């Protein structure tokens, strides 16, 4: 373990590495604070800019944006009731009431501490479990990969918020979108309909920035977010929490960390679920649950440590198995592959300096964030008071430039717009966008593994259930499907039964 850490320190403590880390976490915090554009869109936008860096440093920067955003997202939630990231939506539930009670400073301070501790826990999880998982993963062959990815997709769709059927639909759409372009095996055009620019497929960045970034901006304008009120200033002295606050926070933070690490490490689930779960657990465990939603500090620190812990732990399945834990990890995976690194069990063996350097950079980055966030809360507030009506155009410009720089193609720029509009339509109908990205990234890999598995098994499709490990994953997939779908039908049945009973009771 020690020599691994030494390798890591050596790789991370270069000047470029530290600069990338600093830039990443600062940008991440800023993006997290900004309502609208989230870490996903930012990482997607930054991606082309990282092509000039070496893979290790590029990852350090992108990862910095990712967990940095978890810190920043809570700021907007607490001050403006406007979650900067999806995972900080839970933070607003008790954070905003706290701010309204004049305890904004305490809320922000405790959030930062909770986030830091959660991250450290998550880092430890990655450090210890990733190598274990990697060596176990060498038992995997094509059939196992296919089944595991299938499980990951279905788990993400059914467990991760939203109607399971709609999430599954988005997964399928994402898988189909991943097929656009030339088929590697036969050089046949698929889904290109004669448009030559589509021959190389639709770049992940384009879909991600469009469906998340542009859609967010368009929806924000439609909702009138560009005319939001401005928050007040905060004094440094008011930030320090009371002894009672600390006492109340330890256990929720610890529980949150554990929950976060669990969900983060599981492929298919990520920080959003972790934060919701942590909040739910706190309510269940509290002796006075009626305090929640009115400024209970437990409701603030538990989700915050959970989502940071999950954010770090999400790197486990991504780096060791090549299976992303959520949409952001999917983009990270894409980033790795663009740089020519194939994540998987061999990554740790073949590129130890990349892996351990990344882990060490997480720790350094979190330290930087701790130091950064506390004093700079005032500055974030000042920037947030710039009306979104001026921020949105600036963000659009960054999106355009970022996308254009991928292949100097104006067509790509218009594609982003198209996906932005599609994303708007999706929100109107209630289709969640994140599963789409998962499907997009996993699609080509799944098809490849499917082809390979069938080839090895000489066309026998039962191979997926005859090989033991694969059978386990298929079984889990089926289990999750049955559980979520029947739960839906059961509660519908009981509701209909209840309604009918009420009707017959009311009848004379």
């Amino acid at each position, binding site marked *: 373990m020690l020599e691994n850490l030494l390798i890591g320190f050596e790789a991370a403590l270069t000047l470029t590495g530290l600069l990338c880390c600093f830039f990443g976490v600062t940008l991440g915090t800023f993006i997290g604070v900004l309502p609208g554009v989230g870490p996903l869109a930012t990482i997607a936008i930054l991606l*082309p*800019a990282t092509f000039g860096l070496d893979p290790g440093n590029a990852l350090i920067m992108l990862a910095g944006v990712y967990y940095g955003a978890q810190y920043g997202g809570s700021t907007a939630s607490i001050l403006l009731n406007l979650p900067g990231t999806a995972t900080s939506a839970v933070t607003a539930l008790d954070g905003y009431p706290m701010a309204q009670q004049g305890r904004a400073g305490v809320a922000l301070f405790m959030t930062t501490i909770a986030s830091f501790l959660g991250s450290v826990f998550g880092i430890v999880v990655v450090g210890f479990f990733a190598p274990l998982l990697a060596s176990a993963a060498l038992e995997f062959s094509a059939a196992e990969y296919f089944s595991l990815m299938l499980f990951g997709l279905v788990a993400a769709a059914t467990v991760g*918020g*939203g*109607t*399971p*059927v*709609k999430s*599954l*639909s988005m997964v*399928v*759409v994402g*898988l*189909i979108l991943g*097929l656009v372009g030339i*088929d590697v*095996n*036969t050089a*046949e055009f*698929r*889904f290109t309909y004669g448009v030559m620019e589509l021959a190389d497929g639709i770049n992940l960045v384009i879909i991600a920035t469009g469906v998340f970034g*542009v859609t967010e901006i*368009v929806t924000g*304008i*439609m*909702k009138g977010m*560009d*005319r939001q009120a401005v928050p007040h200033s905060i004094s440094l002295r008011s930030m320090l929490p009371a002894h009672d606050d600390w006492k109340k926070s330890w256990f929720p933070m610890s529980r949150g960390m554990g929950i976060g690490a669990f969900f983060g490490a599981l492929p298919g689930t990520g920080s959003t679920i972790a934060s919701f779960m942590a909040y739910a657990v706190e309510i269940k465990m509290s002796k006075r649950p009626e305090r929640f939603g009115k400024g209970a500090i437990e409701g603030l620190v538990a989700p915050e440590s959970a989502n940071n812990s999950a954010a770090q732990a999400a790197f486990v399945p991504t780096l060791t198995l090549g299976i992303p834990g959520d949409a952001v990890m999917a983009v990270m995976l894409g980033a790795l592959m663009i740089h020519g690194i194939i994540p998987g069990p061999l990554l740790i063996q073949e590129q130890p300096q990349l892996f351990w350097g990344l882990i060490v950079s997480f720790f350094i980055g979190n330290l930087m964030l701790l130091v950064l966030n506390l004093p700079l809360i005032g500055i974030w507030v000042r920037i947030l008071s710039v009306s979104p*009506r*001026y921020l*949105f*155009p*600036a963000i*659009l*410009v*960054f999106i*355009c*430039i970022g996308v*254009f*720089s991928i292949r*100097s193609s*104006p*067509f790509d*720029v*218009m594609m*982003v*717009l198209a996906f932005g509009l599609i994303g*708007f339509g999706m*929100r*109107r*109908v*209630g289709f969640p966008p994140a599963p789409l990205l998962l499907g997009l990234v996993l699609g080509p890999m799944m*098809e490849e593994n499917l*082809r390979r598995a*069938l080839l090895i098994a*000489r*066309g026998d*499709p039962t191979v997926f259930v005859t090989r033991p490990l694969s059978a386990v994953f298929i079984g889990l997939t089926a289990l999750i499907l049955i559980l979520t779908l029947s739960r*839906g039908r059961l509660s*519908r049945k009981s509701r209909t039964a209840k309604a009918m009973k009420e009707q017959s009771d009311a009848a004379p």
Partner: protein
Amino acid sequence: MLKRTNIVASSVMVMVGIAAVNEGMSLDIGSMRRIGPGFTPLLLGGSALVLAVALLFSRDGDIQPEPVKAAIRPFLSIGAAFAAFAFAIAHFGLVPAVIATIVISSFASPGSRWSNVTLLALGVAGVTAVIFRFGLHLPLPLFQWV
């Protein structure tokens, strides 16, 4: 009886499914031993159609359909902003493209002050020039009178 959003959602998936099945059939499906390019599209198209049926009866989960009022002004100005960028970046260079995009997209929010918009446009143009051109060395010409 059926919710309107469910019908819309279902129709979308029906169209996706038909398109995928169509594409799959037009390509070689191959055999089970050696699947062809049409196999996966066919499989996914079939799944999409099954899901389309299920969608007709789905309940809303945590993510509700958002009944956001679709106003025409933001759509037009953001659309025009993108088009302006796409056109300008290729023919006029980065700085004109940035300025055009900011100015046009600021029409999406009524009531933006002209002085602020101009400042923003010039400021962002400067910042992006520094970051993207000088900082990251991306091949983006700043000015290009073609």
